[in-house]
């Protein structure tokens, strides 16, 4: 028996020491892992000494899987990371700082990336990820129905949007709505909140800032659309098929993300193909900010093959490759030069996304953010559906968020104390 184990160990060793071909492990999620095959094959063709082992993990299990891998010291070389998770993995000291790699790179130029997206990868002045694709929310709207209400262009600011929604409601009547913002989604209110000048957290991300005038203004605008009857207080599950309803005219504006371009194209009924369009989000005064979502490519500090892995990051960041990736999956690319390629420059629906991407803003970079944003959504649902007073709601929200951030506050005070003591 012992002989067998020894022999097995020997073979294992001989595999590991075979240095002519390096295998790098790449964890990709959901559909991304499925469509990336062709690109990986091309990369391997260009780099015969590197083999890429793509591991597909479903999105719903990704977070647990990665944290467990961290605890077990089994992280891959490369991973696509939702950019709100970067602060978390940076706090664990598991990410490789990438600035030196970028400085030496001829393919990756920070100035070519949309600044808001790039900023999501920078934690405490250190760069930890290279944006791979982006995600944001903006307006999908029915041009014909908006024209029926007397407007030939989408709204430029909140005041104009409110006028348009009121006009639509007058024209379309009680059983129809002006805008659809599912109450089980946080992205709409978060977009409005990011359009304000005040940050969402204060004191270095250790306290909630939801009682600020900025957030109150965003919440008031959001709540008003429901109070006036412009938006139905429904969650996504209550509308059986949001695309059908959009083309039935249940609502005129729909605040949603890039994947819906493909869906609306596919599902538009005959005669309505040209009836819809996309537009950047209106802000309080002019066109406003949006969420800087998306995923980034990160290298793990534990990787033994950083140089080869970085080659793959550079390969996947080439504009031509990004264009092909976009064609396969529909996620908007993060580089301006990719947008200038004909495939994207000529897409009438994608244009609004490019415009919006110039104005996206990162959310606070604390690892508790996902919990905080869930609290924010629950608060907005209580205001919209439960009729809670907005004053009390933001006070309570701040109290809850302060509770979530208690540990951060304690750590910060301790570190300051240590820094002060001689």
């Amino acid at each position, binding site marked *: 028996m012992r002989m067998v184990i020894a022999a097995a160990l020997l073979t294992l060793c001989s595999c590991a020491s075979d240095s002519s071909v390096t295998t790098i492990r790449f964890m990709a999620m959901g559909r991304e892992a499925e469509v990336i095959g062709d690109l990986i094959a091309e990369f391997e063709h260009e780099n015969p000494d590197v083999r890429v082992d793509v591991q597909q993990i479903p999105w719903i299990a990704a977070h647990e899987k990665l944290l467990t891998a961290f605890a077990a010291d089994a992280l891959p070389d490369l991973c696509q990371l939702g950019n709100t998770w970067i602060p978390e993995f940076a706090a664990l000291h598991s990410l490789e700082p990438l600035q030196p790699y970028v400085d030496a790179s001829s393919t990756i130029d920070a100035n070519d990336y949309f600044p808001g997206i790039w900023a999501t990868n920078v934690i405490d002045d250190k760069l930890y990820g290279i944006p791979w694709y982006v995600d944001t929310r903006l307006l999908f709207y029915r041009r014909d129905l908006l024209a029926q209400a007397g407007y030939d262009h989408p709204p430029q600011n909140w005041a104009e949007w409110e006028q348009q929604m009121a006009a639509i409601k007058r024209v379309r009547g009680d059983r129809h709505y002006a805008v659809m913002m599912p109450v089980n989604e946080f992205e709409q209110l978060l977009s409005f909140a990011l359009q304000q000048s005040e940050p969402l957290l204060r004191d270095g991300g250790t306290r909630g800032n939801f009682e600020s005038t900025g957030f109150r203004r965003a919440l008031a605008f959001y709540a008003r659309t429901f109070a006036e009857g412009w938006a139905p207080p429904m969650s996504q599950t209550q509308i059986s098929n949001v695309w059908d309803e959009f083309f039935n005219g249940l609502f005129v504006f729909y605040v949603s993300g890039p994947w819906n371009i493909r869906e609306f194209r596919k599902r538009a009924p005959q005669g309505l193909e040209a009836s819809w369009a996309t537009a950047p989000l209106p802000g309080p005064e002019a066109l406003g900010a949006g969420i800087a979502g998306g995923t980034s490519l990160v290298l793990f500090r534990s990787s033994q093959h950083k140089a080869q892995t970085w080659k793959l990051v550079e390969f996947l960041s080439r504009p031509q490759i990004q264009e092909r990736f976009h064609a396969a999956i529909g996620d908007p690319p993060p580089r301006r030069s990719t947008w200038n390629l004909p495939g994207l420059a000529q897409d009438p629906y994608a244009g609004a996304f490019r415009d919006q991407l110039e104005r996206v803003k990162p959310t606070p970079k604390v690892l508790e953010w996902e919990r905080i944003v869930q609290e924010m959504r629950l608060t907005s649902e209580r205001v919209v559906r439960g009729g809670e007073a907005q004053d009390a709601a933001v006070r309570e929200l701040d109290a809850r968020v302060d509770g979530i951030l208690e540990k951060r506050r304690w*750590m910060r005070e301790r570190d300051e104390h240590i820094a002060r003591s001689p």
Partner: protein
Amino acid sequence: MKKSLAGWAFAGPALIVLGLFFGVPVLEAFCLSFSDFDLYALADWRNLRFTGLHNYLDLLQTPLFWKSLGNTFYFVVVGVPLSIAISLGAALLLNSAAARVKGFFRTAMFAPVVTTVVAVAVIWKYLFHTSYGLVNWALAHFGIGAVDWFGNPHWAMPTIILFAVWKNFGYNMVILLAGLQSIPQDLYEAARIDGASRWRQFLHITLPLLGPVLMVVGVITVSGYFQLFAEPYVMTQGEPLQSTVSVLYFMFDEGFKWWNLGRASAVAFLLFAIILAVTALLLRFGRKRDLL
């Protein structure tokens, strides 16, 4: 060699394994439940704090904890009696003199117990699919409109209960069948001579003599059903509207989604206390009725 020493020598290996892989982790988890072990502590041990009973007190003020407790009680209160009733019914059928090919039916009804949850869940998801599921197709023949079994907050838990009962009733059935077979036949003969109906025989012979076995089955099922996790995890992920979040699911989320291992450990010990209390009550009830 002393007798006791030989005993220890035989039990030793098992005790060491149990102690190492069960005792120590339980003790560790108990200690963790009084700390705020989280991601920050995972990154750096100096970020770990002893927080006393804070996790426990905080949980009692967490709405989702109460909601998950409510969901779990719903599952136990409906699922356990239903499961035992179906097991008993199946055992009676198998035990009846009129039954043919008993071996086949016994195996068929036990089969769900030994299949994996995930594989079976995939099939059930197809069966209960809103638009092309067999169940809705059958209901449509009776003029009942499509039910969104896993998407409607009112139907999700009943569907999970149905799934769990179907999956597990075979286990109890086998135990009850053994219990039924140990009831002496002459009692039934005497009852028949006295002119007792089948129902009276069941009520006055089968049930009382099956009492102790039912008690055991009840305790096992209750403690098992309180630990509901795999079914909602593979079928609904706690949705819709958190209507299928069980206590263990809540613990899993706290522990492995948010990585608050301190809080998650506290949930585990609270659940342990609840199961202990409920089974103790059951046993007391059993002793009072002389079932044990």
